[in-house]
Structure formats: C-alpha cells, structure tokens
C-alpha cells in the first residue's frame, strides 16, 4: 500500500497586498523618515524581499513622541473611557475581518506556520483588543485606586517572534488605560505592525494615539531614552532588557520588561503520557522554539526516561518542516540568518560539551533559514545548552529522581518565566506549582495564552505582567 503523502496545501498569498515600500506611521499618516536609511524585510522561508521599510532615526522618533504627547494631551487623555473602549472594539473587529490577511502576512514575514498564525496568533490578537477594550471605562475597578491615571506616552519595543501578538499585548492595555503609544516592531518583522497602522486609520483612531516607528536597535534606543516617554515596555532578550533598565535609571519612567527564559518542563512517571509528549512537542517546537517561555529544558523522571524519549522521538518523526504557508506545516522557517547562526552555534556547543544530538530525518528547503527539530540527551545542568536560551527548536533533556530534585534543577537558573508539570497527581501539581520560581506554570498543558491570564517572569525574566487586570495596572500610574 502506498503511503499517505499530503500534497502541498498552500494558503493563498493573493489576499495580502504588500507595498513595495513603507514609511513611518506618525500622527496618523505614513511619512518619510528624515534621518534613517531604508532597509529590506525578507521572507525567511525564501529570502525573497517583501518590502522596503524606513528606519526611524532619533529625529523621527522625536516626531513620533511629540505626536503621541499631543494626542495624549488633547484627545486621548481627555476622552471618556467609553469612547476609548469603542475605538478598541473597532480595532478588534477590524482585526477579525482581516484575520486571514494578517495571518498570511505574519507567516510570510516571520516564517511561522500558517496553522499557528491563523489559529493562535491572530485570534489572540483580536481577543486581546476585545478584552482590554472592556477595561477602558472601568479603570477605577482595576486595583490602582479610585482615580487611576495613565502614565502618558508609552514607548514600546517588541520582538520578532509573535510580531502582531506582542503588538497587541503592548498597545491594547496602553490605550485602554488612556496612554498614547509609540511602538517599534522588530526589524525583521515590521509588516503586520504596518498593517496595524492601516487598521488604526480604518478605525478612525485619532492621529498620534498610535505611532509605529520601524528600525533596529538604534531606533529602539532612541525611543526608550526619549525624555518625554513616561512608560517603557519591552519584550525581548535579557541582555537588551538589562540595558534598558540601566538606561532608565534615575528617570521617572515606569518600566515593564518581559525577557528571556529557560523553562523546565517536568515529566513525572505518572504523567498522562500521550498528552505529555504532545506538551513537550508543543512546548519546544511551537513557533520553531522562538518562544521566550518555551519548555526548552525537559526534566524527565529517571524511571520513565526511556519510554518518554522513545515516544518523543517517534512523535518528532511526524513533524512536518517546511513552507510556512503550507497548511500542513508544523515547523516553519527560522526568523533570520542571525538567529539561525545562533542556534547552530549553541547546538555545536552542545555537541562539543558531549551531549548527544538527534533530529528526525527531514529534508530542509535549499533557500531560506531552516533548522530541524532537535533533541539533546545526556545534558547536565552544567552544560551551556541547559542554561542559555537557544530560542530555536532545540530541546535539552535532563533527568531527576525525586520531586525535590526536579524543583532544585528547575529553579537553578537566573531565569524564571515559565515551567511545566506533567503528573496525574493533584496534590503534587499544587506542591510543584508552589515551589517553582516562575511566573507561569502550566500543569498538564503548555504554551497556553489568554488575554485574561497574566504573563511575565521572575528574576532575570523581567518584571511586570502582561494580560489580565495585572497587565492593565502596568499602564496606570499609582
């Protein structure tokens, strides 16, 4: 009998209309950059140039911050909460209406599988705007006092792993609380943020309430360090987060940081084994492992090590790596050449340190940036691949014998963003959840997100929370 080979099932690109070049979105209009050079954004799956994007220099950032300040003082700050809410509801609806287009655009620019951008990213983006829209006229119930006030102008810098979702996590609560925004998307994934700028126009959002400045680190630095920014929100690497924390020292700026992680995903011998394997796979291979809360350290109880590893490898053999726009793709492209180089380098370190590397047979496309799903066994706490965030589809497997040892190993890291627990024993789940020093603990599940659910880290994974009432508090002065 012949094999059941899935024929290519490509999502159509026709739905997106990418312009050849984009300006900066300042004060409600796309404008030419005054002091930066344009740069190209490419599809990481093919290296095809998608568009040319403007780099905002300090003068452009200043212009954007001024526009945001004006909008804050004249329009958005004085506006009744119920009207801010209506704008946010409009935006949420427009995102739903343009969901497929945004999903395709996200997959094109980021490299993530269309299944994820379509079923996870974009629905969550709309849900975030819906959730925070409802807060805009209820701020006095948010736990920040009877008369909570916005900070003013929020400078927000987001990463490339969930471009539009991170934008939503930043902009929705900021606007609900009455702040205005200057946001810088990542330089490799600016297109959905620019599409969002169009959505702001379609929603008739007053000019200056949302400003999008594209660019790289220099642009982000100019934004974070701008003296008229009141609130800084950053998601990205711990190294950059640290630099931001230093740069705002001595100012009045409020800061929230959502940084790196090296989550332990802990499997006990009584785990629901098949769902656990799915959870491990989802934990590390979701979004190519470009997830700050990825379950990148698998801690397996020694008594079930062989079984778990055997089943995991078998499952990994069924993962489909390839064209992000193919609806059957499980693992798409690595976002950039630089990220691919980093993953390769750390994987090489893993081998050099004596860990055993395994990947299923999989054919990788010739063009673009690709890395196969990979598991390292024989990893110990001392190995770099057990300590450093790889931010790719690379899993390090360690073992433990007792719950206390699992906790000790899980917590033995400067990070503290997330953790996973797999066991059928309820009291153990609660004990483990208590002991783990991490901001999000998934028990018998992994990588679940919801606008009502606060997300953020302990220790060097940053501070502040995004999502839920707590996420709103971060945008209210108190």
């Amino acid at each position, binding site marked *: 009998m012949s094999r059941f080979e899935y024929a290519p099932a490509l999502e159509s690109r026709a739905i997106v209309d990418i312009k050849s070049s984009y300006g900066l979105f300042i004060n409600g209009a796309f404008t030419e950059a005054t002091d930066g050079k344009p740069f190209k954004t490419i599809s990481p799956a093919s290296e095809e140039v998608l568009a040319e994007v403007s780099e905002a220099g300090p003068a452009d950032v200043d212009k954007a911050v001024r526009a945001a300040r004006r909008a804050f003082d004249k329009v958005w700050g004085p506006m009744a909460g119920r009207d801010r809410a209506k704008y946010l509801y409009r935006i949420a609806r427009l995102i739903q209406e343009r969901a497929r287009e945004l999903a395709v655009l996200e997959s094109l620019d980021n490299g993530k599988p269309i299944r994820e951008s379509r079923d996870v990213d974009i629905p969550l983006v709309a849900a975030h705007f819906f959730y925070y829209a409802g807060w805009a006229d209820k701020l006095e119930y948010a736990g920040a006092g009877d008369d909570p006030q916005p900070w003013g102008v929020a400078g927000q810098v987001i990463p490339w792993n969930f471009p539009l979702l991170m934008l939503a996590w930043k902009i929705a609560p900021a606007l609900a609380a009455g702040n205005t925004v200057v946001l810088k998307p990542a330089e490799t994934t600016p297109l959905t943020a620019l599409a969002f700028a169009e959505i702001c126009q379609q929603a008739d959002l007053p000019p200056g309430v949302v400003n999008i400045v594209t660019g790289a680190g220099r642009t982000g630095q100019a934004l974070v360090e701008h003296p008229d920014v009141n609130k800084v929100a950053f998601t990205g690497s711990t190294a950059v987060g640290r630099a931001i*924390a230093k740069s705002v020292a*001595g100012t009045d700026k409020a800061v929230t940081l959502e940084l790196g992680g090296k989550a332990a995903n802990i499997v006990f011998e009584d785990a629901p084994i098949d769902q656990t394997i799915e959870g491990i796979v989802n934990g590390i291979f979701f979004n190519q492992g470009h997830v700050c809360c990825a379950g990148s350290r698998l801690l397996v109880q020694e008594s079930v090590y062989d079984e778990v590893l055997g089943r995991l490898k078998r499952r990994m053999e069924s993962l489909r790596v390839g064209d992000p726009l193919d609806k059957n793709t499980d693992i798409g492209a690595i976002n950039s050449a630089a990220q691919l180089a980093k993953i390769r380098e750390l994987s090489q370190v893993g081998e050099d340190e004596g860990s055993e590397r395994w990947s299923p047979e999989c054919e990788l496309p010739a063009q673009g940036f690709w890395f196969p799903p990979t598991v390292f066994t024989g990893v110990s706490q001392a190995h770099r691949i057990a300590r450093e965030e790889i931010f790719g589809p690379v899993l390090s497997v360690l073992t433990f014998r007792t719950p206390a040892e699992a906790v000790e190993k899980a917590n033995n890291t400067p990070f503290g963003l997330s953790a996973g627990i797999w066991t059928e024993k309820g009291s153990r789940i609660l004990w483990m959840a208590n002991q783990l020093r991490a*901001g999000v603990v998934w028990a018998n599940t992994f990588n679940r997100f919801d606008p009502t*659910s606060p997300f953020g880290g*302990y220790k060097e994974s940053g501070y502040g929370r995004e999502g839920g009432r707590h996420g709103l508090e971060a945008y209210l002065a108190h």
Partner: protein
Amino acid sequence: MPTKDGARLEVRKTYKLYIGGAFPRSESGRAYAVNNTKGKFLANASQASRKDARDAVVAARKAFGGWSGKTAYNRGQILYRIAEVMEGRHEQFSAEVAASEGLSISKARAAVDASIDRWVWYAGWADKLAQIVGSSNPVAGPYFDFSLPEATGIVAVLAPQESSLLGLTSVIAPAIVSGNTVVAVSSFERPLPAITLGEVMATSDLPGGVVNLLTGSASEIGPWLASHMDVNAIDLCGISDPDEARDLEAASAENLKRVRRPAVEDWSESPGLSRMTQYLELKTVWHPIGV
C-alpha cells in the same frame, strides 16, 4: 565615672548588628560614634562593611524558603507579635527616638505608637494580600487558571535617614509580610532604634535571617547590595542624592532587580499597598478541566 551619691551605675548597651538572628559586631571591627541631634554622644554603633552585607544576604537567602513557606496566618501572627513586644519596650524606643531625632518625648512616643500600629496594620495584611492582588482568570478554554502573589526573594532596604523607627518599620514590614527576607541598612546618623528593633525581632518568633539590620553608611554598603546577584529587589528610599540613586538603580539592573526609587515620603500617612506589591511576583497557574 563613679557616682557621688552611691546611686547605681547604669549598664550601658552595646549596639551591634543583627544578622541571621544573632548580634555580631562588624567583621571589620569598625564602630562609629552616634550623637543626638545636639551633638551629644549617645553610643557607639557598629559600622557594617560590605562583608557584613554579604553575610546578611547569605542569612536572608537561607531564611527565605522557610519564611515564604510559612502560612500567611503564621506570618501575620509573628508580625503582630513584633508589635506586642515593641509595646513592652515602648519607653526604650521613645527615649531612643527622642534622642535620635531630637523630638520631644511626647512626639517620640507618638512616633513609637505609629510604628507599633503600623506593624499591626501590616500583620493583618498577611492573609489578605493574595485575595486582593491575586485573581482567577476566566480564560477562553477548558482550563482552570489562577494567579497568586509570591514573595520576590531578598529585598535590600536602604532605610530612611530621618525617620529612625517609623520610617524603618514602614519599609521593612511591607517587604516581609508577604514572605520576603530583608537586608536593611539603617539610618546612618540615627541607627539606635534599628538595633533595638532587631532585639524585638529576635524575641518575637521571627526566624533568624528574615530581617537583617546593618548600621552604617548606605552610600558605602548600597552599591554592594545593588550589584549583589542574589538580591532580588532594592528600596532606595534612604538615598537622597539623585546621582547616587541613579547609579544604584543602574547597578541593580545587572540581575534585573525590582527597584523602588527614592521619593518624598510622609511616613505618617496611610501606606497603601504599593510597598507590598513592589516586592511581589505574580504566578499564574494553568490546569486543564476534564474528566
């Protein structure tokens, strides 16, 4: 000096540091003269060094698991016990505050009253905080999802320079009530009430190491605490120089400490939640709901 009329010669108190539940002198062997506001010698205080700070952080880390792991009810009882024991030492605190701050004895007594009442206020928060700042999150899926506050870890406190007891109480109590442990540097010029407070703590069932009190210079010890990689948060309220505060904040960024910037504070006002929530982490837990 012998007494002329045969009255009893007083036993003077030696003020030492309070680290890990014990009262050591500074490892540096240093002490400094503490005067009242009119310049009259009151006592010698130990002048804590960076190594004392290091030892205090070790003691605070050692105490953290046990303290944060206690039931909130138990922590509340212990904070209340601190208030009870302070009440018994009211006169001593009043005399020290009066001498340290140059207050009339009646104003000093009022400050001690307020300090004791503040411990009582915070004691009551121990088992209510999670209900106020935690949440149950109605996620769009078959999951039970809740968020609970947890102590951040070790909080370094550079205590207020002016308000020697009420200010100190107002910065330590909100940190420990939720399970944090503290390394505090007292007011440099007004350290005596701090050490007496340590003596109260040592006899109030507060486990050793939960609060560690260093007398000495915040400017000298602060940078070591700010850059210490095992300190999770820092309160800079005792630093008045903006440049110094900026440098301490920048040093604190190294391990992403939660930083409380200096601000104008009126310690007699109702404190609100912000000093407690400053040193809390929020943990969100998900679990599927199924049969």
